[in-house]
């Protein structure tokens, strides 16, 4: 049998559709990898073995009688444990919700069920998508498959780690200030934060309603496009120019010739940016130019302005959710989560309103500054992830990232691997688009990914 660990979603779909491999074989093989390898990684909080095998058998039976549903039929996936699956716990990786059983599916789980996908389990995260990595929670934090002592990024840590370790080819995440793109960068996989409101958040526990997004993480750009297409309603898909089938974004392979790529160099041009990351980002831009893109500098407000604006919004909105629990059960939070969430108590109404006003201005600025570009690129993390047990250093890395601007603007943005450090850690870069411009983002990312040829490189420990 084909080694299933690093099959892409697209390869899995082809093999299942042609019945060269059954969903049951693939699901069973991935469950075996999880059982064998995840003890060191802690990427899953819950593995739904029996239900997964039952879903896989059902998929095989349907395909055998000619009722093939499409590219996700029989394909395993994992969901961040902040997303409701009826009958399963949604813990948000917190003692606060340790006994919380979801009564209904999130809309995106329903959509994947309709596509015939097979849920392998729920993945680890930072507590309530903000407080991590933490060692004082009921479950340990996920580790980075490239170096187990290193932070895998967050908050969708388990989703990124499981993908990089070859435990699954599709995982769902959420992104309020970079929580899909951070683990994508740190673990060397692909993650997209789509346009605000493009993917339903119904049934996803909120962190900050006006900044929250849900989206897929995968190991390749093409897989990501397939996955996103299955999360959209037909109306949203039409607005994005997204079809169906194995290549839902028809122009994904059209290449970079004729595209104008803006570069927000200011976000990663400062003295506190790691030199290897800056150099890799510049090299990726040069590669895009060599592939035919027209490169254009883009100037926007300083990164700190975007980060501060987003921080106020996130803290205020998150505090509104957690205020009662923080007052009555604050010892049930982990230290990092408790502190991050309590910070919202220190903000006033004026702070929040001013931040929303600033946000509207920044969103307009981003539209104006990128009007002549098809996509814009910038770095993702400005420094490499810290040791996971070095709390102070982890804290220092949090503001040293260029991800929050796109939560503030609400525009789509994808992180993909563009290289590796001398120490062997992945380097990610962001490609952002206009609202509803995911097709252009995928087209640019697909061309760059093909030129860089990194998709076959995996963490040696998990081969």
């Amino acid at each position, binding site marked *: 049998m084909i080694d299933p660990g690093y099959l892409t979603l697209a390869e899995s779909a082809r093999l299942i559709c042609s019945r060269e491999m059954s969903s049951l074989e693939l699901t069973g093989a991935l469950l075996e990898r999880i059982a064998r390898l995840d003890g060191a990684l802690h990427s899953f909080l819950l593995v739904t073995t029996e239900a997964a095998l039952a879903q896989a058998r059902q998929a095989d039976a349907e395909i055998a009688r000619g009722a093939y549903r499409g590219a996700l039929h029989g394909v395993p996936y994992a969901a961040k444990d902040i997303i409701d699956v009826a009958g399963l716990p949604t813990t948000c990786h917190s003692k606060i919700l340790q006994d919380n059983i979801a009564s209904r599916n999130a809309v995106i789980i329903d959509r994947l069920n309709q596509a015939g996908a097979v849920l392998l389990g729920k993945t680890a995260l930072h507590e309530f998508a903000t407080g991590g990595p933490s060692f004082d929670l009921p479950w340990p934090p996920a580790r980075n498959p490239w170096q187990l002592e290193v932070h895998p990024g967050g908050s969708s840590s388990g989703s990124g780690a499981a993908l990089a370790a070859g435990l699954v080819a599709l995982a769902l995440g959420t992104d309020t200030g970079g929580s899909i793109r951070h683990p994508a960068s740190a673990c060397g996989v692909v993650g997209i934060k789509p346009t605000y409101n493009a993917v339903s958040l119904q049934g996803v526990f909120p962190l900050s309603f006006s900044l929250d997004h849900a989206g897929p993480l995968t190991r390749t750009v093409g897989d990501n496009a397939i996955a996103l297409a299955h999360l959209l309603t037909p109306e949203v898909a039409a607005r994005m120019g997204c079809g169906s089938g194995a290549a839902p974004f028809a122009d994904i392979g059209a290449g970079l010739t004729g595209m104008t790529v803006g570069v927000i160099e200011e976000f990663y041009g400062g003295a506190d940016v790691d030199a290897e990351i800056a150099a890799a980002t510049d090299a990726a831009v040069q590669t895009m130019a060599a592939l035919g893109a027209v490169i254009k500098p883009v100037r926007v407000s300083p990164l700190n302005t975007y980060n501060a604006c987003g921080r106020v919004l996130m803290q205020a909105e998150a505090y509104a959710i957690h205020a009662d629990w923080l007052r009555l059960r604050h010892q049930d939070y982990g230290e990092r989560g408790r*502190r991050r969430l*309590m910070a919202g108590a220190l903000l006033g109404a004026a702070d929040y309103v001013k931040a*929303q006003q600033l946000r509207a201005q920044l969103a307009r600025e981003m539209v104006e500054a990128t009007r002549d570009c098809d996509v814009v690129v910038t770095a993702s993390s400005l420094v490499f992830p810290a040791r996971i047990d070095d709390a102070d250093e982890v804290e220092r890395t949090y503001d040293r990232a260029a991800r929050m601007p796109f939560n503030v603007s609400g525009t789509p943005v994808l992180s993909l691997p563009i290289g590796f450090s001398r120490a062997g850690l992945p380097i990610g870069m962001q490609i952002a688009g206009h609202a509803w411009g995911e097709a252009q983002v995928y087209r640019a990312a697909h061309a760059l990914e093909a030129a860089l040829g990194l998709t076959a490189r995996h963490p040696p420990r998990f081969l």
Partner: protein
Amino acid sequence: MTQQSASDDDFRARLSAAGLEGLSPGDLAWLRAAYDKARAFRLPPDCPVTKRPAPVFEPPCRPVHD
């Protein structure tokens, strides 16, 4: 009252208003740093906060971006 003592009073008042009492010294120190960071942030001078506010939030699905 000095600026520092006014700031200390405001910090304590906000925690008290939120019912966040009996916190550990570590939590208090972390929150004080977060408080100071929030206070240090100033809006850009051209941000029109003293004018009629724009809509509180304009997601890109609204016509403003069309």
